[in-house]
């Protein structure tokens, strides 16, 4: 996965470090990564010294400065190896699982809304708003994960450096790249459920133009 600054960021399975796990990019920028539960690494290939911050399931793992070139990060600030755990394992561990933030059910605000519409009409519109009604809505709720694990965010920013004469300095703005790690079966399920959002790989075009055969 490429950050907007041209830094290549990849998640590796620590047990097979010479393989780049299969992944697929979704519209919106989230990358789904097929990786089993267990230790993992984050690899960065950067052209300049870079500040990196890694969070897993909203828990900060590491904040570091890395040099230009290839860097593999496998251990957090607490000295423990990065580990992708299942929700159950996370719950058993020290940290409490990351529970989806519930939007609090508050009173329906009325100020600024025109209430001229008949309450019956509005109730009818609301009742029929979902195809399949309450059942479909309940089904949708049942598919929402109660606990989310494996959601990794890598924030990168070029470390400020003295500009070299004649060279345009790189942009210093921060960029975030997000990965959702899933063990193989869950990953397959996620790809099936999000197939409509997959960003297809770039077309591999022939180098010559098909109409006039001129070299492009």
């Amino acid at each position, binding site marked *: 996965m490429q950050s907007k600054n041209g830094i290549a960021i990849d998640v590796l399975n620590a047990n097979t470090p010479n393989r780049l796990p299969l992944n697929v990019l979704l519209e919106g920028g989230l990358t789904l990564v097929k990786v089993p539960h267990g230790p993992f690494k984050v690899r960065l290939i950067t052209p300049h010294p870079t500040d990196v911050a890694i969070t897993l399931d909203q828990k900060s793992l590491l904040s570091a400065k890395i040099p230009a070139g290839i860097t593999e990060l496998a251990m957090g600030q607490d000295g423990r190896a990065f580990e992708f755990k299942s929700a159950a394992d996370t719950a058993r561990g020290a940290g409490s699982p990351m529970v*989806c933030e519930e*939007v609090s059910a508050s009173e329906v605000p009325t100020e600024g809304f025109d209430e001229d519409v008949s309450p019956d009409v509005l109730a009818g519109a609301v009742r029929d*708003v979902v195809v399949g009604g309450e059942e479909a*809505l309940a089904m949708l709720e049942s598919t929402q994960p109660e606990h989310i694990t494996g959601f990794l965010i890598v924030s990168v920013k070029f470390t400020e450096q003295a500009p070299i004469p004649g060279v345009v300095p790189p942009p210093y703005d921060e960029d975030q790249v997000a990965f959702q790690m899933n063990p193989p079966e869950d990953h*397959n399920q996620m790809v099936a459920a999000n197939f409509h959002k997959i960003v297809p790989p770039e077309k*591999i075009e022939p180098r010559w133009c098909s*109409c006039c055969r001129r070299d492009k």
Partner: protein
Amino acid sequence: MYDKLIKHIRMWDERLTRAGVRVGLKPYETRYELVGDDQMVRLIPYVMLPAHYRHWSFGKKYEQQMKDGGNFHIFEAVINSSPSFCYLGVTNRLPMQLLVMAHAKWGHVDFFANNETFGDSGADSIIERLAQNGEFVKRLTRDPAYGVEKVEWILDAAHALDDHVGWVPAIKDRVSDKLVRKELEHQLVELRQRLKQAESSEFESRGIQERIDEIAARLKRDPINPVSDVLSFIMDERNNPRLGDEERGLIAIVRDQALYLHPQARTKFMNEGWASYWEKNLLLQPEVSMPANWAMEMPQYWSMHDRQATAWYFDPYALGLSCFEYIDREHGFDDGEVEVDAPSFTTREATAADNDEESDFQYRTVDGKVIEYTGETHKVMTVNRNRDKMFQVRQHHEDKSFFREYLTEKHVQHINAKALEWMHRVCGVISRQLRASGFPPAVSFHPIEQKLTNASLEVFNEIVETWSNFAQMGQQLQQQGWPAFPVPPQTLQVMGTILQIVAAYDQDKAKFRSMLILRTGRHSIPDIEVVDGGPLSQDLTGSLTLRHVFDPTFGFLKQSECKDTVRYARRLWGRPVRLITVEQAQDRWGRPIGSPRPYEYFCDEDGEVRERYLA
């Protein structure tokens, strides 16, 4: 030069016509025009009609096209009209021109003329309508009392809603709102009488009361039945008498064009698949008889949309074509032989003058002899392929029903098998390249044939993951003394995507197919309908209530687009507008937070859009 080109185009058109008519294609009469690339790019936003009305958004489309592609080449553009107009790129080579004519006239124009979705598009009057619309807009723009800013004020809003003009083709025998209201009122009277009689049990009485409440609530709505043609509802004088004739006229123009264009969006995959099928199969008929040098060249054009394996899942041309080929395989059959007229020709050895001839006009045999067509024909026997099922499908379906019925489990498995076979071949090529470049067997997987014998997805995963790693690290590894990795990361990304698609399909076939259908044509546009236009027979100050028919498969709407929808609807309606949908909080990566709940967007005269959860 042009005379010669036109003479040759005519000759090939005659041959295509003989073949097309014999196989059962029935396009509108079609007129060809040769158009330069620049003119083509300029006209595409205007539906290829110079008389089309002007709006800044068309210029923006043109600018975007230029920015995205720069000096790209468009092979053809064709208009759904009767007679139809087919614009051929003037710089197409002659063999490409032949292919484009088969694709456009015998594919697209036949589809326009015979697919039921296009039944209400008014192909026989569209040229005149668009010209009249252009004149109307021009007149208003030049009218000092109206002016360009006012025209754009309305057109901007109408364009924003032009996806919501109802189902095409229209349902002819739909019961009117008036009749439904009468029937419901009658039912209400009857039910109230039954309730008064008090002969029924408590259980029955409760049931009757619920029914009474339901009907009474329905009767309060106007319209009683939700209306999916939002623009039509808004411009109807009975619903919106404040709208001036000019505004009504402008909205009608946008609606007319939307109704004309929607069938194309709704049948994009089918239409391109049909055209791609005939651009190949028609050229192979004996009536066409391509010279050998062209026949050698055609396959690279035929495979233009087919050469990347991921296109078999994502590309309208490749996926549509594979579905029609599947129908042909499953339902088509050879039905005896038929006698046809094939063009006669003589051959002779090539001279120096022949070799100097421009290559487009050189017709050669396999052994390089010059072909000279005599203008006569001779009888030959050919197989009579029965394609009745394909023709039925072409007539009755649109993308959604087409894929539901013909993107069957068997067919997807066929595509998957084809994709894995492609993987198998590519793995062999890459392995050999890696070996030749000096990579060790742990990376080249040499001898790969051994590794790939009865290969499971896991074996492919291992190979692709390993190579992807090397491709990603290529530059850095080279600095450490490794040879250059000869495969671009793009290729491995395609391979990785194929593996994930196949695995995802195996995991959940139903979900995969429904999500794939969601990628097609207009199915990425939400269903929005009018459920209430305000109280009847009052001072018409009522608000307009729109409802998004929330489909859990489709997902949630984009908030920014909802806001624009109510804002622009408010502009045309002239009174408050609300949109009811279902919303769920999401983080910036689109992950859900909390439960989905009904949600309202509301816009009043200040133009500000307010939002709230309704329950």
